[in-house]
């Protein structure tokens, strides 16, 4: 329960910060200034936008299916928000500690496509229906490589509990972890720091992370995979008819999804709440000094923010994919590669 009390206020603050960061970063990449007028350096621009959004009139199309139309954004947000319940935040703050945490997260997040379909269909608009169909096709396809890349991590860590996965990647672990996964190079348990992160314990997982990152971009409908809301082709996709507060909820769900997949990537591949600094010798115990309840939240959120910024960076660098390219990327490249990675991880675990 206490995770909820932290995550909900944090999400609001996070989305205000990240929307500002996204606008500033895109401005930087396109050699513009970005928001400059409201507050120093335009810092209050998102707050002003949010206030404007909340007072806007909410328009429901006359021929829309009223209840489905109104419920759909909430369903999208609830599906994404429920995923946060199982995330561990620090060594002593483990979220909802169910043993199937990772499986639950993937399952509940896949529910948001139902909300998207509801939104698109109930709007009674060609572009909304097209956007919703694209979203459904895309989300279902990219769940396959996403699940398979997560499975690589599960094979290595042999648990579905996210807190247990975090513990394995630090100095608290009782499972021996070797430098780059090779026993001859020596054990790194007492070193801690980035040496015990999954990508260093098991270098193959770095490639699994690349697949995870690409599919998580598609799962959160971000460019280059934003076909469901391709503004040049289908106005704004499934959210065309939404306005005001409900549109805000859809956007909040998108940004929450970005944070969720970043936090999940952090936990699975980059050590979760573990510090990046290793212990050096017996005097310079950087790992032990920088581990603790508050440090845990700090590292976790810092790493997740770096991944979110990478997502923003990708968004403003790459053009949008075409539908057939989208499908062939998922089914002809990512899925076979992740299947091969699973076999390799299994053999690695055997020897």
């Amino acid at each position: 329960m206490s995770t909820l009390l932290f995550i909900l206020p944090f999400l609001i603050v996070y989305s205000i910060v990240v929307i500002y960061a996204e606008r500033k970063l895109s401005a930087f990449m396109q050699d513009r200034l970005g928001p400059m007028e409201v507050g120093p350096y335009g810092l209050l621009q998102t707050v002003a936008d949010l206030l404007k959004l909340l007072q806007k009139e909410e328009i429901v199309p006359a021929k829309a299916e009223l209840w489905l139309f109104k419920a759909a954004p909430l369903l999208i947000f609830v599906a994404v928000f429920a995923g946060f319940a199982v995330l561990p935040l620090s060594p002593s703050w483990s979220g909802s500690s169910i043993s199937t945490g990772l499986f639950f997260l993937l399952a509940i997040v896949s529910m948001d496509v139902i909300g998207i379909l509801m939104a698109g269909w109930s709007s009674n608009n060609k572009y909304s229906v097209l956007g919703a169909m694209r979203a459904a096709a895309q989300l279902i396809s990219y769940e396959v490589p996403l699940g398979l890349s997560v499975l690589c991590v599960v094979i290595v860590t042999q648990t579905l509990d996210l807190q247990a996965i975090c513990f394995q990647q630090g100095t608290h672990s009782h499972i021996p972890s070797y430098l780059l996964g090779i026993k001859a190079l020596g054990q790194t348990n007492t070193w801690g720091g980035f040496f015990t992160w999954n990508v260093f314990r098991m270098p193959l997982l770095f490639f699994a992370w690349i697949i995870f990152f690409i599919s998580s971009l598609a799962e959160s409908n971000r460019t280059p995979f934003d076909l469901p809301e391709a503004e040049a082709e289908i106005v704004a996709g499934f959210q065309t008819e939404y306005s005001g507060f409900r549109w805000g909820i859809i956007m909040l769900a998108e940004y929450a999804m970005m944070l969720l997949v970043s936090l999940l990537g952090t936990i699975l591949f980059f050590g979760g709440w573990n510090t990046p600094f290793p212990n050096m010798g017996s005097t310079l115990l950087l790992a032990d000094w920088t581990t603790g309840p508050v440090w845990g939240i700090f590292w976790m959120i810092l790493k997740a923010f770096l991944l979110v910024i990478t997502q923003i960076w990708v968004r403003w660098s790459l053009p949008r994919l075409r539908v057939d390219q989208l499908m062939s990327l998922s089914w002809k490249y990512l899925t076979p590669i992740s299947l091969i990675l699973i076999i390799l991880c299994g053999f690695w675990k055997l020897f």
Partner: protein
Amino acid sequence: MNLKDIIHYFFLLLAALAAVGILMAKNVLHAALSLIICLLSIAGIFVLLHAELLAVTQIMVYAGGVVILMIFGVMLSSRVANKPLNVETARKIPGFITGAGLLFIIVYALTTTSFSLHPNSSTPASNNVREIGFQLMSSYVAPLEIAGILLLISLIGAAVTASFLIKK
């Protein structure tokens, strides 16, 4: 009656109402949405019975399955063209008889079977994922593999059917 029981009965009622909703719905998409409510309530009941893995599998498998159903619903019931595909409740009496017969068989089987715990099983452990995994890959490996091959056959069949259509 504590809170857990109330939630339990709430999910049971919701599942039953949603099931009636599937039958009553005139629109294919509404029926699909009722179906997802029904399946999710059953997942909720599984959670209350400490069957976590089963509950999550229920959400994972059926959410995806119902989405496919909804896509068909959207394609068939194009609201944009103002020609919604409406389904009617036909053959009420044979349907009712079949349903009542099925209900009778299930109730009869439930009342005459004595449910006892498996001799080897202990109290429901919180972490039974590992145990289920070991059981699936050792004692029950044949059903698992047969199900896997069946799914593979259907996948290849779908791919072959699709490519056949493209060639034509």
